[in-house]
Structure formats: structure tokens, C-alpha cells
């Protein structure tokens, strides 16, 4: 009796692992495929007659897509740098990477300051207009960017933000959902420390800066990760607002490279590897925060 129970448990565990592994394959095969293709030394576009190039598309057509062939290397990465430089009349790759990094870094950092200080004020201070502001924040969370994108384009023209770094950054600094996450966190913090400091004559801003901020690491990390993910991949707004290739961000540059005929699959894959590796590395190092931010963007219970 006991034996059959443990046998059943063993079979159950084996079945679980079988499904777990099948799912693991499903969720990783495209990425393995991307890395493998990117590091295979050939390119279908540059010379269709060369055997190595035929090899790449043959590999793409079978299980060899997932294994190295006898000609691995970084040729296609060199191709990307060769294609994306000033001599060939394109924006250099480093510049595209810099554009994305600059825009996202400024949005995330200024966003943390602006959204958290607003959230602190409405969470902790009693002032005229407070409850109206809370209601406002809660109601505008449901307005997606897509609903305001078109008027924003007009506004960007009028304010001279069209086709510029400022235009990519300023509209995204304040973020209602980030404010809401900070607000929830601050409301739940114990008040005693702050009250003691207040009695000692510290100003509100000092309390926020010296007492509340050091306690708020988790919520800052969560909001930073959420904003980083959303902004690093942002395609819609750059598509709408950018004309100058020098300002292109990674998603926009990738989309426009991808759209050029004939498609140089190997080079495209090398480009995507370089565009997505930073997010994958960040994810592996800061996994805990990614998971936490995903969950905190959901409901509790």
C-alpha cells in the first residue's frame, strides 16, 4: 500500500519534470535560435553563392538551428558595426545604443524622484487639494498611452519636442501607476520614525530624504524595473515622433534594419542579440526585482 503510494508519487514527479522540460524548451528555443544564428559566420545577403551562406539557411530549416556548426564566430557582429557607422552613411551602432540608454536612464531616474516625492506628499501630508490629487492619480491610471499618443504628437509639434531627445523623455517622466505603487508603499510604512523626526524639528523634505528613502529600496527597485522594461522596448512613440536616424532608439533602429530588403538574417540576429543582451543580463542579476515588479503590478489576493 505504502509502496504503491510512493511509486505513484515518483511517477507523478517524473511526469511533472517531463512537462516542465517541454515547457522550458518552448520558452527558450527562440532565444537559443537567435544566439546560434547570430554567431554563425555567414550571411545570406552578401553573396548568395557562397556555401557558408547556404549553410545558414539550411541550418534554419532543421534541428541544426540549435547547434553550432563548424564556422562559428563574430563576423555578423562585425557586419553590424560595419553597416552602422558614419562611413556607410548610417548612424553608428554605439550611437543607437547610447540613445536608448540615455533616454531610458533619464526617464527612470527623474521618474523615481518626481513620482516618489509626489506619492510621499499625498501619502503622508495633510494639505489642501490632497484628496483630489489622490482621486486624480487613481483615475488616470486607466488611461493608456495609446489613447493620448495622437494629441501628444500635435503637442510635441507645438512645444518643439518633435524629433528630439526631450520629446522622447519628458512625456514619460511622470507616471501615474508608479505614483500609485509608491503611494501604497508609503502609506503602509510605520509612522513613528517620521513623527519622532518631526518633533525634533526636521522639515518634511528632510524626513522624506533621510528617513523614508533609505527604507524604500524595494519599491524604488520595483518601479525602476517596470519603467526600464517598458521604456527600453518602447516602439510606438519613436515610430510616431522620430525622423532623424541619429536619434533612433534600439527598437526603432531594429525595426527599420529589419524592414530593409534583402533581409540579412545573420546580421539582423547579431543586432537583436546586442539589443536584448542588456535586458537579459539585468534580468538574471535582478531577477528578484523583476518578479516582484510583475507581481506588484498585479493584485494582492
Amino acid at each position, binding site marked *: 500500500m505504502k509502496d504503491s503510494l510512493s511509486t505513484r508519487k515518483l511517477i507523478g514527479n517524473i511526469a*511533472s519534470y517531463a512537462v*516542465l522540460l517541454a*515547457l*522550458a524548451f518552448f*520558452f527558450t528555443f*527562440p*532565444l537559443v*535560435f*537567435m544566439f546560434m*544564428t547570430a554567431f554563425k559566420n555567414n550571411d545570406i545577403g552578401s553573396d548568395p553563392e557562397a556555401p557558408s551562406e547556404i549553410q545558414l*539557411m539550411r541550418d*534554419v530549416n*532543421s534541428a541544426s538551428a540549435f547547434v553550432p556548426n563548424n564556422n562559428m564566430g563574430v563576423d555578423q557582429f562585425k557586419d553590424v558595426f560595419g553597416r552602422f557607422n558614419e562611413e556607410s552613411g548610417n548612424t553608428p551602432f554605439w550611437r543607437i545604443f547610447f540613445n536608448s540608454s540615455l533616454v531610458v536612464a533619464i526617464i527612470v531616474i527623474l521618474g523615481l524622484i*518626481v513620482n516618489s*516625492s*509626489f506619492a510621499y506628499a499625498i501619502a503622508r501630508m*495633510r494639505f*489642501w487639494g490632497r*484628496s483630489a490629487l489622490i482621486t*486624480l492619480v*487613481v483615475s*488616470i491610471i*486607466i488611461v493608456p498611452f*495609446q*489613447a*493620448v*499618443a*495622437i*494629441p*501628444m504628437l*500635435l*503637442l510635441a509639434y507645438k512645444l518643439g519636442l518633435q524629433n528630439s531627445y526631450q520629446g522622447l523623455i519628458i*512625456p514619460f517622466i*511622470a507616471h501615474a501607476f508608479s505614483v500609485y505603487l509608491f503611494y501604497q508603499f508609503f502609506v503602509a510604512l510605520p509612522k513613528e520614525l517620521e513623527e519622532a523626526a518631526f518633533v525634533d524639528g526636521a522639515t*518634511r*523634505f528632510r524626513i*522624506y530624504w533621510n528617513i523614508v528613502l533609505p527604507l524604500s529600496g524595494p519599491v524604488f527597485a520595483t518601479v525602476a524595473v517596470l519603467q526600464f522594461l517598458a521604456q*527600453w522596448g518602447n*516602439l*510606438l512613440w519613436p*515610430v*510616431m515622433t522620430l525622423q532623424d536616424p541619429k536619434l533612433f532608439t*534600439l*527598437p526603432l533602429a*531594429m*525595426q527599420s534594419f529589419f524592414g530593409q530588403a534583402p533581409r540579412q*538574417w545573420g546580421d*539582423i*540576429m547579431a543586432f*537583436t542579440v546586442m*539589443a*536584448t543582451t542588456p535586458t537579459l543580463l539585468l*534580468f538574471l542579476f535582478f*531577477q528578484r526585482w*523583476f*518578479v516582484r515588479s*510583475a507581481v506588484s503590478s*498585479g*493584485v*494582492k489576493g
Partner: protein
Amino acid sequence: MESKSAKQADNITAWLMSAPAVILLTIFLIVPFLMAFGLSFTNLKLNSPLPTQIVGFDNYLRIFSDETINFPRALLNNFLFALVVVPVQTSLALGMAILVNRKLPFINVFRTIYFVPVATVMVVVAVIWSLIYNSPDGLMNAFVSTVTFGAIKEVAWLDNPSTAFASIMLLSIWQGAGYQMLIFLAGLQGIPLELYEAADMDGATPWQQFVKVTLPQLRNTTIFVVITTTILSFQLFDQNWVMTRGGPQDSTTTMVVKMVEQGTGSLGWIGRASAISVVFFLIVFSISLIQRKLLPEERAVN
């Protein structure tokens, strides 16, 4: 007891701390939000020498009747996407969550792996899957031809109006399931173990436990997941724009794709695109209302 001047100082500090966010949210969210409604009643066109006029409901009539715009097709596609992707992705994610909630060695590794696509930029995902769907040489063709013993081969997945949208749905599920899995996992971990112990005592089978304990306990989580995924279905843009530009023959077009096509670039029909924005918002707003009705109020002002 705070003095009057301290209160005033508090007032000033509070507004100073709020001002940057409030000003930015006003200019870049509230103002454009209201503008969308106003603009949708005008014929405003970028770079047009003609004066802008109020045209009433013309834009709305136009987007729903003009076959060259084909907006109803976009609307239909968004609904179709929600109808297919939401149930499939939600059930897959729930199954995954239950699986990774088991106490097995290395289970954390699997959780991480399933979440990786979520941390991958959508444009990257779209590009990789375009190579998978490449035709005649491509992984999808190799796979399908192998499992059908060569009966189906060389399908032009993204160039064929009858397969393009389904192909995009598949990669969207691939990218989004990990996120939902985590939400479900959090929900599962919130279920009191005593409920399962009691069910065990009563001799309930695992399936009965799932139906009688797990599902009812996950009610709120499920509503949340279903609603947010539905809203995301209506925001569909990146993958369609990169992979097919809404084609072939509008088979993968969406509301946001139409909005961008009409409102930007050479067309620049701000008025017409604003009407699309308003329709888009009203749909998303209705879905959010359903959520607020079904879920207990958590965003209460304290």
C-alpha cells in the same frame, strides 16, 4: 497639535513636492486626453494649408464606413485576438503556475526560464519569430512538415492572410504567459494550506481540489489576469507593426496600427486618428469598469 504656520508650511512643501509630477501629468496626460475628444470633431491635418474646421461626427462616420481606412477590420482583429489569446494564455499560465508551485528540486530554475520571454523586448521577439516563420526555409515549416509527414510544407506564414494573424497570436502567447504565471503563482501561494488539508481529509481527488478549492480561491487573480490581458489585446501594436505592418490585406491590422497609419507620416490626419483614439479609449475604459465592478475596491482613498 500643529500650529497654523506649521500647517501652512506643510501646505507649501506638499505642493512643491507634488508640483513636478502634477504639472507633467497635466501637460502630457490630462491635456492630450481631453484634446483627443476635441480633435476628433475637427478635420485637423498636419502640414495642411487649409484652415481647421469643426466637422461634427464626420470622423467617426468616416472611420466606420470608409473602406479604404478599413477600421472595422482593425476592431474585429482586436476582438479576435482577445477572444483567442486571453483564454489560451490564461489557462496555459495557470497550468504553469500550478506546476512551478510544486515543491520539487530546481523548480526555481523553471520559474526563471518561463519568465525570460517577458524580459525580452517585443521588437526582438517579433524579429526572432519572423525568422522562425520564414518561408520556405524556416523552423516553423521544418517543424510542421515533420509532424505532418510532409503533408503541409512551405507555408508562407506571415505572407498569407489566413495564417498571419494566428502566427502573431502564437508568439504573443509565448511572450506573455510567463508574466501571468507569476501573478497566478502569487495567488496560489496566498491560498491557506488548511483548505487543501481539509479537502484531503474528505478524500477529495486532486481534480476535485482544483475545482473546489483552487479555482474559487483564485477568483480575483483570474479576473485581474483576464481583464489586463484583454486590455493589452486592444493595445496590440509592436509585433504587428514589425512583422507585417498590419498586412497582408489588413489581416493583422489593429486599432493602434490604424491610428499610427492615419495620424502620422505623410497622412497626418490628426482629427481622424483622434477619433480612433477615442474609440480605443472607450473600449479600454469599459473593460476597466468591468474590472472595478468585479473586484473588491482596493484603491480606496484612506
